[in-house]
């Protein structure tokens, strides 16, 4: 029996969104243009307004303990059940295209007081990257696919949302997400809402219904977080990358904008200044259900094998 790889993306076409987009695929006949976020990290100032505005609007509780993480100015660590926007801070000894910093040229000292011992390794370049992460609202969303209750669903805007009144906290969506976004909320149910239920960004589904901008994008002081029709955002992002390249910021690249990527393109995509993994993002995420048909076939084969083996065990009368 061959266990050869059938590779991702060879599954049943029915498991992946069709040409009309994920909302059509999810049965929405009367649907607006697909909505999304374009997060341009090249103009993020790391103020965390998005984190707070999100929490305030969605009633997301305090996340964890009041402890310094030591990861630059990031004290929330990662996206999770109670952090739906997360700002990453990355300090790097790399140049930022077009930027000059005064960290260069620390010559050798000639002074013997305290304070006179300089770094023998001369500093070179420095940059401080900030990026506001969020649920990607994938075109092919693993969390949604694996949800056994229908708590996770595709909205008419093409976004992926948890219905907290439906979710029974099976937790399956948690390991399914290739970005590590969704999480089951823990805590004291007497004081915290939706304990035991999977939680993540809703792209402010309630606000979208009234044609309002999601809380994070509305608050963002520098328009690093841009909300809008996904098609338009993708074009805008292409122009932005081209402009940055022209300005010498050759590190600029888009992440999650490609409809042909492993998740069929993200509804929330990013302009990054380094490799995705630098920001804690997977470099080449693939929706796990891409392999699901193959998995089902193999499971079926295995099941058949078991049935056959059992039959043979009884049929054979050698002993």
């Amino acid at each position, binding site marked *: 029996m061959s266990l050869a790889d059938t590779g991702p993306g060879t599954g049943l076409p029915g498991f992946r969104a069709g040409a009309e987009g994920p909302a059509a695929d999810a049965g929405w006949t009367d649907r607006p243009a697909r909505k999304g976020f374009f997060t341009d990290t090249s103009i993020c*100032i790391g103020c965390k307004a998005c984190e707070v505005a999100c929490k305030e609007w969605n009633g997301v509780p305090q996340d964890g303990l009041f402890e310094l993480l030591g990861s630059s100015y990031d004290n929330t660590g990662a996206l999770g059940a109670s952090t739906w926007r997360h700002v990453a801070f990355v300090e790097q000894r790399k140049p930022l295209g077009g930027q000059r910093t005064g960290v260069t040229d620390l010559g050798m000292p000639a002074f013997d007081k305290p304070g006179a011992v300089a770094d023998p390794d001369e500093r070179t370049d420095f940059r401080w990257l900030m990026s506001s992460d969020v649920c990607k609202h994938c075109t092919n969303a693993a969390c949604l696919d694996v949800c056994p209750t229908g708590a996770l669903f595709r909205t008419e805007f093409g976004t992926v949302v948890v219905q907290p009144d439906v979710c029974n906290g099976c937790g399956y969506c948690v390991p399914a997400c290739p970005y590590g976004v969704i999480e089951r909320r823990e805590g004291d149910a007497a004081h915290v809402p939706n304990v035991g239920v999977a939680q993540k960004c809703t792209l402010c589904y309630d606000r979208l219904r009234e044609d309002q901008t999601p809380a994070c994008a509305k608050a963002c002081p520098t328009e690093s977080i841009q909300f809008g029709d996904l098609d338009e955002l993708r074009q805008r992002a292409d122009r932005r990358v081209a402009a940055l390249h022209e300005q010498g910021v050759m590190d600029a690249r888009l992440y999650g904008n490609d409809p042909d990527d492993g998740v069929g393109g993200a509804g929330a995509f990013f302009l990054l200044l380094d490799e995705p993994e630098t920001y804690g993002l997977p470099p080449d995420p693939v929706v796990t259900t891409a392999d699901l048909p193959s998995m089902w076939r193999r499971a079926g084969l295995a099941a058949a094998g078991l049935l056959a083996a059992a039959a043979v065990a009884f049929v054979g009368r050698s002993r």
Partner: protein
Amino acid sequence: MAECHPVGFQWVMEAKARGAKVIHVDPRFTRTSAVADTHVPIRAGSDIAFLGAIVNHILSNDLYFADYVKAYTNASHLVGEDFRDVDDLDGVFSGYDPETGKYDTDSWAYEGETEHAATTGPTAHADDQDGDDQDGDDHDGDDHASTAHEGGVSPGGESEQSESSRGAAHELGGHGASVEHQQIQRDETLQHPRCVFQVLKRHFARYTPELVQQACGITPEQFLEVCEAVTANSGRDRTTAWVYSVGWTHHTVAIQYIRTSAIIQLLLGNTGRPGGGIMALRGHASIQGSTDIPTLYNLLPGYLPMPMAGQHDTLAEMAAGIASSSQKGYWANARTYVVNLLKAWWGDAATEDNDFAYDYLPRLTGDHGTYATVMDMLADKIDGYFLVGQNPAVGSAHAKMQRLGLAHLKWLVVRDLNLIESATFWKDAPEIETGELRTADIDTEVFFFPAASHVEKSGSFTQTQRMLQWHHKAVDPPGDCQSDLDFFHRLGVKIRERLADSGDDRDRPVLDLTWDYPVDEHGEVSADAVLREINGFHLGGEKAGQALGSYLEMEDDGSTAGGCWIYTGVYADEVNQAARRKPGRDQSWVAPEWGWAWPANRRILYNRASADPDGKPWSERKAYVWWDEDQQKWVGHDVPDFEPDKPPSYRPPEGATGIAALAGDDPFIMQADGKGWLYAPSGLLDGPMPSHYEPQESPVANPVYRQQSNPTREVFPREDNLQNPSGDEPGAEVYPYVFTTYRLTEHHTAGGMSRWQPYLAELQPEFFCEVSPELARERGLEHLGWATIVSARTAIEARVMVTDRVVPLRMGDRVVHQIGLPYHWGVGNEALVSGDSANDLFGVTLDPNVHIQESKVASCDIRAGRRPRGPALLDFVADYRRRAGITTETGNQRRTPGTEGATS
């Protein structure tokens, strides 16, 4: 700016997107630096060396905007022969008295003129000398933010010139220094050796790129890059803006920092023009309003001075003290403004016959500022203290002195949203732990009044660009919460009840006070009515009872009243103009119909300078207001800051004074000579031009001259205010590092409005110190470990954040390490997050002009591990002091020992 004013920073980002270059000068690499084109790390406290070298670069390379400088500044004015510069006098200007530590400023005056006598005599204490820019605000993060950008992008007026440049000439009582303009002698060629231009050029000649390296730790290459960017972006067609967060005011030479940038902006023609100016980024919702309508000891509303005993015994003396009757400009009407204030306060009891109840005003005799007050508390001279939305136990410099002072009070009123450390000091101050205080021994009665939040009351905030914006009440305050307006109104009613039967003269001001404000159904006073009184109204004549439309309608005969002349117009046409909310997208980029900016709804001050002397825009691109020949008046995007129908060609007749004396090309209408001052012949107490002095505590010796620190700084040699040795003094090596304090985006000042909120507290949960990897290695500090930071006052502990964002600075032959300390935390049990307060490290030493403390820079030692607990902490700090040989004299001698004329 991105750290502390993220939403304001959107305009910088927008400018950058349009091609502006953003330069960030700051000791640390901050969130602003992260998106700036250039970050220039600087040693905290060395800004005059940096800015002065830019002045030198401009002057020695002839990069100034000659037409502007000649027409609009005092560059051509001749300075008197008696003036001597710091180079001649070992680090002080002429007129210095080493005994008093003060200047006799007569020798700084223009040629042929003596300084207007009533303003500041050599013996005058520094009491009517606070300017409208004394707003120290709090310890904002971006101490040294400068943003050069190509202007005109901001409907909100990002590019607006703040009043600070005005303030630079107005340190005296906020009313401008007066000169007799008639006698000024000029050399239009700018060649006369004693003309301001040449004096300035000589003065700044020693501020070279090499000095910048030596004093600031900035390389010549990077310095020149800044010079080139700033100068290339200034001229007819382009403007550069300077933006500072008010950490600039937290220095013993604070005013002179701002003066230096004002000089740059005048030389480059960047003042009064769109996209230019100096923008003070203030840190509190109405910090601007708090100086406009001051709760400051030395000011009355509208930058009128509080009267000094013996100097301003009559209304006439006071008015004369504000402005010479023969000087140019709008300050010449000072008496009118005072009379209107008195009429607003004492109504019918203020009459022509009694000098409009001028005698009801209490008199000053010295420095009664907040630090003098706390020392009075320690001397048991003060019974009662009101803290209204303020947390000095965490937020003031030398916070320990504040806490000890509170424990000396008989009674204390704290009005706040949360149980701040200043309200709970009697049970959880750090001094309880050290044994310096015992709860049972503290006899202070403490009243905690819960306050209403901004949505639970109506009122106006004045934001950082002088714009008043009204916030409407949305809900009733919960529980016992109450607005400060309501509280003080009720308190006034109750006090007046208690004094109602008094026949004592001293109670007349209280009983005659106009205190009959309309109240709503809850008995709450109407903020709207108070704003209307601030605006003023006609008492007599045809318009009796009507609100004033502008301060030009004010009379000095008692027929009008108005509580704050600069705010007159905010209630014009009986409409609360501060509540105007025409959407920005529906109006011009200046957005004049949103809120109301003082004075007269003007968004850029001195905007006459946006046009050339003939009244034409310097360039079409930078057109803002201009003279329209057809209409014979000034027109443009903003309210012209000039008499609307005075043509550019107007020249005052002989003997004209006040407004009439302003020529058609005198744009600086509040200045006594109508010009922008490159050189301040009067008005400043610490020099007519900025000169580099080291901070009060600095491990670096002054590289310019032997005089180490500002020789006029206000010092307090006391056992409880010991200072670290500096420079070459023995013992300076015990405190070898520089530290600076700042804000983080996630918190607000002393934390009263952020450390109680989970959403903010979790984002920055703990007090930390930022150190470079090099310093960490030198002192064995571990990332996320603990460090103890020590000054002569105390020692505090912080978690360690090792980061490349802090850079050791190479300055000539040595390397200086800087330590960054955000100051939001305090010791207490009520907040969600707490920690030692960075402000405990500071002592009290003040700028002489405005009495603001130096709390952006000092020296310290740092070592790994937590600080000692209990009484051992005191021994630990004392041991350091012994090693450094500290006495009350240390650092508190204004003239550096060894310099000419130094005492002792």
